[in-house]
């Protein structure tokens, strides 16, 4: 365990699970992690190891941070949100009092606009969680915040009530129409962007959703930033396992690391259709790797 000399860099620490609660369809884990909480910025992640030092498991699991409270009765805490319901995975099932080994905060956060522009935050299911602390930062800067929450069904929706407190308008959509507008975020977004005259779109969700959000933002003429959570085996940029094809300023596509260069990318820069491969025109792509 160590705290790197630089004050803003990530830390490696043991964190206690303070609470583990079911909220709607999701599981909320609050961890006592002062170093991470102080350094948190919306969009950053933590890489966790929770199966104990003697286990056969040697990689980390990287998750976005939901919220951080740098000051509190227990010192700084962070909160993570995981899929809940039946069949909790082994992380979500950890009881209060358990200890986790964690590294964070990792990655590049959402970039905040300098000016008080109109923003729309688009979240799909539980992936929407990191958008909530972002909404607070945007409002601090005088930005208008609109929120679109989407999910397959009502139980998958995350944070609808909280969004109503945090945003100027909240739109809800479900694929099955169980609540809100029937349809996906991609279906609903174009009209929402036009109605709110949005300048910047922030999105978090699975790649297929982010792809449509980025396309809708581009059509509307808005900037977009997408939090792309591909599997990140180490979280620290060392293993090179979490690559995403991203177009640079020079027009060249490079395979860049989701954890180190992301997890937040400009939506118009990600080659969404090519996430699972190395595009043939990528810098350094070789015959046979396509």
């Amino acid at each position, binding site marked *: 365990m*160590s705290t790197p000399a630089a004050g803003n860099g990530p830390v490696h620490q043991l964190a206690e699970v303070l609470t583990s609660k079911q909220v709607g369809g999701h599981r909320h884990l609050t961890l006592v992690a002062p170093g991470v909480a102080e350094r948190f910025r919306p969009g950053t992640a933590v890489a966790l190891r929770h199966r104990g030092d003697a286990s056969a498991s*040697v990689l980390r699991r990287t998750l976005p941070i939901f919220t951080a409270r740098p000051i509190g009765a227990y010192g700084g805490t962070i909160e993570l949100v995981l899929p809940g319901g039946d069949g909790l995975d082994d992380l979500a099932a950890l009881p209060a009092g358990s200890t986790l080994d964690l590294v964070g905060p990792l990655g590049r956060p959402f970039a905040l606009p300098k000016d008080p522009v109109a923003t729309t935050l688009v979240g799909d299911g539980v992936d929407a969680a990191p958008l909530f602390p972002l909404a607070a930062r945007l409002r601090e800067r005088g930005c208008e915040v609109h929120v679109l929450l989407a999910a397959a069904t009502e139980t998958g929706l995350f944070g609808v009530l909280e969004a109503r407190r945090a945003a100027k308008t909240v739109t809800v959509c479900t694929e099955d129409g169980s609540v809100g507008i029937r349809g996906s975020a991609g279906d609903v977004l174009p009209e929402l962007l036009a109605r709110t005259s949005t300048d910047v779109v922030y999105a978090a969700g699975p790649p297929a959703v982010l792809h449509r959000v980025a396309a809708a933002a581009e059509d509307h003429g808005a900037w977009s930033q997408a939090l792309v959570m591909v599997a990140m085996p*180490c979280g620290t940029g060392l293993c090179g396992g979490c690559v995403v094809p991203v177009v640079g300023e020079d027009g060249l596509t*490079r*395979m860049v690391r989701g954890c180190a260069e992301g997890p937040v990318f400009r939506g118009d820069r990600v080659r969404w259709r090519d996430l*699972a491969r190395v595009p043939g025109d990528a810098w*350094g*792509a070789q015959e046979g790797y396509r």
Partner: protein
Amino acid sequence: MTGAPLSTSLAGWELPSPLMVASGCAGSGRELAAWCDLSALGALVTRSVTLDPRAGHAPPRVVESPSGVLHSNGLQNPGLQGFLATELPWLVQQRVRTAVSIAGATLGEYAELGRRVAQAPGVAAVEVNLGCADREHHDREFGADPYLTGKVVAAVRREVPRGVTVLAKLRIGDGPLGDLARAAVDAGAEVLVVGNPPHGLSFDPALRPLLGAVTGYVSGPAVQPMALHALWQLHRALPDVPLVGGGGVRRGADVVAMLAAGASAVQIGTALLTDPDAPGRIATELVDELDRLGGSGPARVPDLVGAAHRREGDSQ
């Protein structure tokens, strides 16, 4: 991580610590520097550099396997020119003892890589990654064949001036290790590294390969006994050749085991993916281990090199 007890030597290359960072496990070096003092390492081996930039393999590239990781990154790197312009100068400026890993697709590429890398200021050593496919011979792995191994090492050795140490990295787990090692040493390798990880393959429940590249390599604690066995064999066969061990080193005790099996230094790799600050911790543990193993005073690293063989000899 300082102090004479930890210092070791690889064919005249003096290292203040036997702890090296294995190729491909430090990013460009900068990522790891956020977590540990790179200048305190024995040495850092860079990711393998190829002549041209490589985008690497399609994801997934790194997945968990029992007690280890299965991986195939496809040697993603910025190419020799990019490496020399952007990555190496930073390492040199940070006073990191640097071995540059080179990977060629032909003998000519290896030779050119060796020549241009050894000319760059601040390069202490060249580690020849022999785990590459020979483009001119049906993508056969250079390091699987003693003849090709010798050819590659000789091609590099010719281009690298004396004073820059040449390390040959052999693969653990398959191939005629003794013959490969002799071929490398006869061709001019001063140090042998074992090494490259053994081949591996895993499937998901739908029987699709887990890796984008289909097949890959197994690293981590799962291969540690194989690495120890390779060191054991090589130290018996070539007792005068300095060896570097790699494979599942997570603790000070793992380092001591590798030293005892015949290694003069060890490489830390997979452990960094879990604990990027592992080198500092392992160094502390190693000091404790040396205290434990010493007689009147703490043991020194060179005292332990091959110690398990001597103990074996005593009992016979």
